[in-house]
């Protein structure tokens, strides 16, 4: 277990830790083998001391669905501790996709063993991978708002800046390190907007994007720029082939 993680005692003193402890006690006799949760999202950030323990809404994990019996038990205990039904979930794996399919879009995921609570074993996603997933989430949401809809990922910016600081990675290096996973030209500039002026700056920036007040310069060599759909497949195949490709897009704010 890393020095910068929360301790087992800290977790067990939190509302979610207490619920997990009760759940582990209840399932102790019923589980023949330990159940392992490879956790991602807010719970993983909390374990890494990035997100406040009181701002953890649920436990998202990557892996097989829970048995109906376990789910019923966890929901009942969760309700008792003021957590919503499905507080332990693998909803991120939509429509029963495989872990391999999931990693196809996120890149390879690495988990570290944290600790066990009874027969419930918890592994946490690495900080590097958490950062990449957060960046992909913002990138995806920015692409979606172009077709209409809300920008729902404002909650990620503080986590991203804290992860960048923790990993000693300046925002200017994001594209070098994670550029293969970023398809939207505005992703980094929105993060920089948050860095400059917090959530209100993000709102202004998103409104600018929606109203066409922010544009992305096309690459200098027009012919080499693939279409957007080509970019998606190129990005995916880069991941598959593990071949780095130079990112030629330019991210420019017209302010």
């Amino acid at each position, binding site marked *: 277990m890393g020095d910068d993680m929360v301790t087992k005692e800290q977790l067990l003193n939190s509302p979610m830790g207490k619920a997990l402890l009760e759940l582990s006690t209840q399932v102790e006799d019923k589980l023949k083998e330990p159940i392992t949760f490879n956790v991602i999202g807010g719970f993983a950030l909390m374990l890494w001391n990035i997100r406040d323990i009181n701002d953890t809404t649920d436990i998202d994990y990557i892996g097989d669905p829970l048995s109906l019996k376990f789910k019923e038990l966890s929901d009942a205990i969760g309700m008792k501790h003021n*957590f*919503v039904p499905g507080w332990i979930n693998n909803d991120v794996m939509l429509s029963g996709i495989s872990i391999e399919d999931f990693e196809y879009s996120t890149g390879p995921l690495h988990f570290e063993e944290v600790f066990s609570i009874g027969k419930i074993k918890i592994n946490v996603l690495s900080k590097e991978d958490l950062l990449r997933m957060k960046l992909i989430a913002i990138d995806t949401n920015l692409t979606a708002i172009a077709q209409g809809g809300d920008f729902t990922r*404002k*909650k990620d910016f503080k986590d991203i800046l804290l992860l960048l600081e923790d990993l000693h990675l300046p925002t200017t290096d994001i594209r070098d390190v994670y550029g293969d996973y970023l398809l939207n030209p505005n992703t980094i500039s929105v993060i920089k907007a948050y860095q400059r002026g917090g959530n209100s700056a993000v709102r202004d920036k998103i409104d600018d994007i929606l109203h066409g007040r922010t544009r992305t310069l096309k690459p200098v060599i027009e012919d080499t720029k693939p279409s957007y759909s080509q970019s998606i497949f190129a990005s995916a195949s880069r991941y598959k082939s593990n071949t780095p490709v130079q990112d030629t897009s330019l991210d420019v704010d017209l302010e």
Partner: protein
Amino acid sequence: MSYNRNRRSDPLNNYFTNLIAFNLTAHKLLEAKDEDSFEIWFDKLRLIDPRSLFVFVKKNQDKLPKEHLEAAKWHFEKWGMIW
């Protein structure tokens, strides 16, 4: 990260299940210590029931800090909900 909204066959049952889930969580919105925390809980409640969220924010607008209320209104506007 997400909330798997109850979509079983009985709409009335679904409504009450989501309402219970909403009420279990809604107080967190009022307790949010800063706008980042507010956004985390606002998004959680949005996934449970956006309509209840709109009503809850409107009802509790006097209890919310100005910047949190502004953030909420910004989202509602995007959803086409008139304040």
